[in-house]
C-alpha cells in the first residue's frame, strides 16, 4: 500500500517538473500519452470491469473532440462551455447507442456498436459544411493560458489526474464491485435483485463521458479534430492498448497507451506499415501476454519481494 503511494507520488512529481527540463516535442508527446491513457482507461471500465463489448470506443473520443471544436469555432460561447459540451455530446450519444445496443449481448452488442459508430463517422466524414469533412477542423483556438505546449500540458495533466482519480474511486466503490459481479456472473447478480441493464447503461455513460473528456483534451493539445479520430481502426488501437497493458487491471491500459503512442510516434513516421505493426503486437499479446504487461510487472515485483523475504 505504502509502496504504491510512493510510486504514484514519484511519478506525479516527475510529471510536474517534466516540461521544465525536456524539449517541447516531448511535452507535447507526454500530453498525448496522458490523454490517450485516459481514453484507454475509460474503455477498460466498460470492457474490462463490466465485460461490455465496447468495440467502437473511438466514437466517443471523436464526439468529445468535435463537440468541443464545433462550439469553439461555430459559436461565441465561452471556452469552458466548449470544454463541457464535448464530453456531454459523447455521453448523449453513449446513451442513445447504449439503449439501442443493449438489446443485444456480447459480440452482437459490439458489432451493432461498430455499425452505429461507423454511421456517425460517415456523417462526420461527409458533412463538409459543418464538420469540415475528411479534412476535419484545424487551427482551433484555445484560451491563452493553455495555448502553448506547457500550458496545455498542465491543463491535460490536471484533467487527466482528476479523471483517473474519479475512475479509481468508482472501481473500488459498491458500484464498481457490482459491475465486476455483473461481469463475472450475470445470472447470480440478477438473483441478488440487481438490475443489470441499468448498471451497464451507467457504465456506458461513464466510459463515454471520459472518452469524451480525452477527445476534448486532444483539441486543447493538438488544436485539431479529424474523422480518423473516430474511425473504427482507432477503436481497435485503443482496444490493443487495453489488452497489451492488461484488461483486468486498473493501470494496465495506461501502460498500454504509453507503449502504443510512443511506438506510433516513432515507427508510424518512418514506416507506412503501422497497422501491420499493430497487428503483430496484437498477436504477440494474445500468445505471450494474455494477462497484459501490468500483470507481468506485478508478478516480477511480487517475485522479488518474495525472494527478499526468504
Amino acid at each position, binding site marked *: 500500500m505504502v509502496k504504491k503511494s510512493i510510486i504514484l507520488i514519484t511519478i506525479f512529481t516527475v510529471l510536474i517538473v517534466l516540461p521544465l527540463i525536456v524539449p517541447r516535442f516531448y511535452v507535447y508527446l507526454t500530453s498525448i500519452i496522458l490523454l490517450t491513457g485516459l481514453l484507454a482507461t475509460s474503455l477498460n471500465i466498460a470492457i474490462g470491469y463490466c465485460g461490455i463489448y465496447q468495440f467502437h470506443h473511438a466514437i466517443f473520443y471523436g464526439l468529445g473532440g468535435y463537440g468541443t471544436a464545433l462550439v469553439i469555432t461555430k459559436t461565441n460561447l465561452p471556452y469552458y462551455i466548449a470544454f463541457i459540451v464535448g464530453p456531454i455530446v459523447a455521453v448523449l450519444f453513449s446513451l442513445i447507442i447504449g439503449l439501442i445496443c443493449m438489446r443485444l449481448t456480447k459480440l452482437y452488442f459490439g458489432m451493432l456498436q461498430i455499425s452505429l459508430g461507423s454511421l456517425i463517422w460517415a456523417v462526420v466524414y461527409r458533412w463538409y459544411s459543418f464538420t469540415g469533412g475528411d479534412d476535419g477542423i484545424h487551427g482551433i483556438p484555445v484560451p491563452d493560458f493553455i495555448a502553448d505546449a506547457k500550458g496545455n500540458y498542465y491543463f491535460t495533466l490536471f484533467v487527466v489526474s482528476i479523471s483517473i482519480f474519479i475512475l479509481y474511486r468508482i472501481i473500488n466503490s459498491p458500484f464498481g464491485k457490482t459491475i465486476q459481479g455483473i461481469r463475472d456472473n450475470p445470472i447470480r447478480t440478477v438473483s441478488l*435483485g440487481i438490475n443489470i441493464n441499468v448498471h451497464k447503461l451507467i457504465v456506458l455513460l461513464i466510459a463515454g463521458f471520459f472518452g469524451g473528456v480525452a477527445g476534448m483534451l486532444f483539441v486543447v493539445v493538438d488544436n485539431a479534430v479529424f474523422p480518423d479520430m473516430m474511425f473504427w481502426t482507432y477503436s481497435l488501437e485503443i482496444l490493443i492498448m487495453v489488452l497489451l497493458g492488461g484488461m483486468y487491471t486498473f493501470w494496465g491500459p495506461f501502460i498500454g497507451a504509453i507503449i502504443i503512442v510512443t511506438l506510433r510516434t516513432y515507427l508510424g513516421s518512418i514506416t507506412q506499415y503501422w497497422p501491420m505493426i499493430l497487428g503483430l503486437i496484437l498477436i504477440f499479446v494474445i500468445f505471450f501476454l494474455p494477462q497484459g504487461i501490468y500483470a507481468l510487472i506485478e508478478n516480477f515485483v511480487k517475485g522479488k519481494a518474495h525472494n527478499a523475504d526468504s
Partner: protein
Amino acid sequence: MLTVKDLYRDFKGFMAVNGANLEVTKGEIVAVIGPNGAGKTTLFNLITGHLKPTAGIVQFKGEDITGLAPYKICRKGISRSFQIVNIFSKLTVFENVQLALFSKYSKTFRMFSKASKYFIDETNSILEKLGLLEKKDLNSELLSHGDQKVLEIAIALASSPDLLILDEPTAGMAPRETERCIELIKKLSKEYGLTILFCEHDMKIVFNIADRIMVMVRGTTIIQGRPEEVRCNELVQKAYLGDIC
C-alpha cells in the same frame, strides 16, 4: 405464501414443465422430488423469473409474479441457490456476501465511497451463522465444493428472503458436509423462521427434513402432501420410489 398453478414450459415442443402445481405455506420446508429430467430445476427457474412460463400462474404473498424479471422477484422476497455452484469465484468469501448486501440496501449505485467499508458487521454475522467466518478472506474459488455450496446459501440469505429456494443443496457433498448442510437447513427453518423450498435426490434427506413433499414426473405434479401420504401413494411408488412403503 407461494402458489404455483398449472404451470407449463415448452422448449421447442418439449414440455419440460407440464402442469406443475405447488403450494408453500409460511414457515414450512417443502421438498420437490422427481427423477432426473423431471423438470425440478426448470420449475425453480420459472418461479424465480430466470425462465418465462408458456402458461400458468405463480403467486407470491397473494401477488401475481408470473414472468417478472429475476431481480424484481428477488426484491419481492425470494432468494435462491443454484444446482451447479454459482458464486463470484474471483471475489473473496466476504465480498460475495457483501455484494448481496449492497443490493439489499440499494447501495449498488454508490460510486464515490469505498466498498470495503460497508456492512462489515452484518457480513461477518451471516458468515458466522453459516460457519464460514474463518474462511472469509479466502478467494471463494479456493473453497471446498461443500463450502462453496454453503457460501451460495449465505449469499442467498444475505438478501433476507421470506422464501429460500435451494436447488439440490447437498449435491456432490461429502457425507459429513451433507450432514452439516442438513443441520443448517433445519436451523434456518427453526431458529430464523425461514420458509424453504428445495429439491433433492437423496430420499433420506427429503423425508428427514421436509414438512411436505411435491412429486414431479415428466414435468407433471403427481401429488403434494405430508411425507407419510407421499410415501404410500400408489402412483408415486409406480412412477418413482419403488417399494419403500
